[in-house]
């Protein structure tokens, strides 16, 4: 058992509301700025890091580095006004990694 904080990274319109609830909120004007914060985010202080879709897109390669570690868990959340579907895509990539194809699961669901 270990206590940790939760970080939320994204544009201020989307994520500002998390601050009063006790989340550690990192606001970025441009998604690329989040890359500079990544060192702090992945150091272990934060157990879960929520990133909005544009931020995830901007630092996908950095996030891939912690994919095999239990902590931090990086999870994509929709940003205000983003297209959506990025979180789905992240899971689809995991499926592809495991099975070599993502066809199998899709067929099963239908």
């Amino acid at each position, binding site marked *: 058992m270990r206590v940790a*904080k939760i970080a939320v990274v994204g544009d201020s319109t989307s994520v500002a509301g998390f601050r*009063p609830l*006790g989340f550690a909120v990192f606001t970025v004007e441009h998604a690329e700025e989040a890359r500079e914060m990544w060192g702090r985010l992945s150091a272990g202080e934060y157990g*879960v890091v929520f990133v909005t879709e544009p931020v995830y897109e901007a630092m996908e390669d950095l996030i891939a580095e912690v994919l*095999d570690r239990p902590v931090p868990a990086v999870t994509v*959340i*929709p940003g205000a006004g983003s297209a959506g579907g990025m979180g789905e895509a992240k899971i689809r990539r*995991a499926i592809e990694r495991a099975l070599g194809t993502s066809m199998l699961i899709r067929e099963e669901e239908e």
Partner: protein
Amino acid sequence: MAKMCVNPNRMELLKLKRRGDVAKRGHKLLKDKFDELLKEFIARISANRKLRAEVEAELKAAYGLFAVARAEAGRAAITQALLAGAPIELLDTSEKSVMSVHVPIFEQLELAEPGGYSFSTLPVVLDEALARLAAVAPRMLELAEREKAIELLAAEIERTRRRVNALEYVLIPSIHETVKDIQMKLDEAERGNLTRLMKVKDIIAAQEAAGER
């Protein structure tokens, strides 16, 4: 398939046969592990899809409420109101082993009580928006936990798949091939030996016959 570079003698043959048995047993075990991991993985995937859709919908609804609040009170006022609050420890993390994959478990501690802004100047919809976010927070954590587990399982499945394939298509065939090769060489040596003995016997018999004469 590549043959191994070993001396063709009985010692090596025995050793290789034993290695082949171990490899086969290992292959079976790994294959079982792979199947079980896959079962676990697929079950998690379909459950996760639903949860994600729900969380995304709820978050978007909360964003909508914030947008309404901003429209009512002005962007600056809302931004200022939301500046209050320091990050606190919200999470209790522990680990669980699923098929020897260590997946994290997140337990949510109590959220901070939003406040520090004026109730008289700010619209009530802001409180609603914050309540909405607070309500979706536990499900967001659940989503984070599950998605992390899926990713970790995917990594383990990939590793296991490679091991199974390496055993099945590389190691085991190459051991088979080498065992067969050694056996053939030993048989050949045996035949060679036999012929030589017969030949020697013939020569000796011929010499004895010559001596008697």
